């Protein structure tokens, strides 16, 4: 078990390194920072000076090594647009993204897990079909359209909730619901299939044969054994949502890292783009790693091997 965790940890490190290298490549594709930083009428001497100052005259592999070294220390350089370090900008916006993602995942859990469980228990009935149709709908609605329609109905028509902005709980309801659509769909489907798998297990059959009441079979045998898998599903969704809320944040003017990165892309502020991508990937990888560790720490069958 210890060896497995070490191996997974090393794998995660490699993944993060790979992500950093990819952000380096993308920054080179995006364009020449000298041309971005200097006005077009700058003299060749000024250009040469800045090129040297930014280290762009060195060979590419050396630039990469320097870049990776700096990023490992959390230094992405200064934002081109704001007089602040890119890392600090991302750091300031991160809480808003985390807040939105947590609420979205909570909304999704509240709807999707009961839906998945009930659909599995009532397999093949009308309840199951309605539940799975709802999940399919959630999966097929583009998030940005869902967001627009939610604003139209609840902010414009009914006037119950603010259309955009950042503030108290009522500001988070619409963006979180938008994000929750897709999360709930995936969670409901996966929960259902996992509960179905558990219902097929021998221990469930034996429990029923023994005359254990159905309610106890479900709660004590089925749900207890699927809990870990469901927890996994939810955690992984959370990892996806934190970096994947770009468009939702854009529509609702939510001050998170998604909107920050979008603004940075429009203005080619690539230290900030790099910082956002690396941080989002880091969060995803860490959550994955933790989920794996929790999984093997709680599943006695894994411990033996």
């Amino acid at each position, binding site marked *: 078990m210890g060896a497995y965790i070490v191996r997974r940890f090393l794998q995660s490190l490699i993944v993060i390194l790979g992500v950093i290298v990819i952000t380096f490549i993308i920054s080179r594709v995006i364009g020449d920072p000298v041309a971005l930083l200097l006005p077009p009428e700058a003299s060749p001497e000024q250009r040469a000076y800045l090129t040297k100052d930014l280290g762009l005259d060195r060979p590419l592999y050396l630039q990469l090594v320097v870049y990776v070294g700096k990023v490992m220390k959390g230094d992405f350089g200064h934002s081109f647009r704001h007089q602040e370090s890119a890392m600090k900008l991302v750091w300031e916006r991160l809480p808003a993204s985390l807040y939105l993602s947590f609420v979205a995942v909570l909304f999704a859990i509240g709807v999707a897990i009961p839906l998945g469980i009930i659909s599995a228990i009532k397999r093949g009935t009308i309840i199951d079909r309605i539940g799975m149709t709802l999940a399919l709908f959630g999966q*097929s609605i583009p998030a940005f359209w869902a967001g627009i329609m939610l604003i139209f109905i609840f902010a414009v028509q009914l006037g119950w909730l603010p259309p955009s902005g950042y503030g108290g709980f009522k500001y988070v309801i619409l963006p979180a619901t938008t994000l929750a659509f897709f999360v709930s769909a995936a969670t409901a489907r996966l929960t259902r299939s996992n509960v179905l798998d558990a219902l097929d297990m021998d221990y469930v059959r034996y429990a029923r044969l023994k005359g254990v009441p159905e309610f106890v079979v479900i709660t004590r045998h089925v749900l207890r054994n699927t809990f870990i898998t469901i927890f996994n599903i939810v955690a992984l969704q959370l990892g996806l949502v934190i970096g994947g809320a770009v468009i939702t944040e854009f529509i609702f003017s939510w001050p998170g890292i998604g909107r920050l990165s979008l603004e940075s892309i429009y203005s080619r502020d690539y230290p900030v783009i790099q910082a956002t991508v690396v941080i989002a990937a880091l969060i995803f990888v860490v959550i994955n790693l933790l989920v794996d560790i929790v999984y093997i720490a709680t599943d006695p069958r894994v411990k033996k091997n």
Partner: protein
Amino acid sequence: MFNKTSADLSSVESPEDSRGSEQRLKLRKLSRRIPKGAASIILVLLLCAFFSPWLAPHNPIEQNLGAALKPPFWQGGGTMDHLLGTDNLGRDILSRIIYGARISVIVGFVGVLLAGAVGTLLGIIAGYFGGKIDAVIMRLTDIMLSLPFILIGIAIIGAIGPSLTNVVIVLGITQWVGYTRIIRFEAMSLSKSEFIEMAIISGCKWWRVLLVHILPNVLNSAVVLATLDVGKMIIIEAAFSFLGLGVKPPTATWGGMLADGRLYMTVAWWTVTFPGLAIFATVLAGNLIGDWLRDELDPRHQLKV
């Protein structure tokens, strides 16, 4: 002389003629259970895409400011001339939706083809060779999975410029991961099977084993995954167009229509409702067909997506 091992063996077991009729019967059975509603939506979509100049009542990019923001025909002020109303520049919404289908169909199919080809190829290579090659490809998929791909896509398109080709390329290089993971698994168990060993013993070159013996056996899964992916591709393209990073205006795209309409939704609900419904219906139909194909081709549900 043993080059055609697998084909020879199977034709010994079941003579060619009876296998043909068996397959026809299978096909007939398959097509009988196709979800009819979903199939009709896809049919309408394809008709719109191929015959848009004949089906659309108006030129999709022709502006008529005198007829701007006309409501659909059933609402006061609407006319039969513009069945679904007009946008802020007086362009006919229905015609723009019909023309927009072209972009969605191209992106959906070409994007899936590209991503599916890359992913399937990497999958069979990883699964067949195993060892270091497998490890490298698997770390690459880990890296791709942890990247917030919408951000990466936006960054790349921001750099190389928005166009239909570039959107499809970005979809191809970011969306192959799902195929690789599942196809690798199948290729792995296939390469341990007897007919592959026979092929290798009989002197089959590695590329021939991959393309002639393994590839046809994983195609079923690849097709199921691809079908389930078409909707995702269409949503991503619409998201790019929505952010102004897809096909350039004034070309009609569903995502672009949503972006235009968003600014006028308080006075003209139809500008955001109908394009969104078009995306939703298309994606829903794609998902339904994908689910149906999976049930038919993969009855044990190994492809949990």
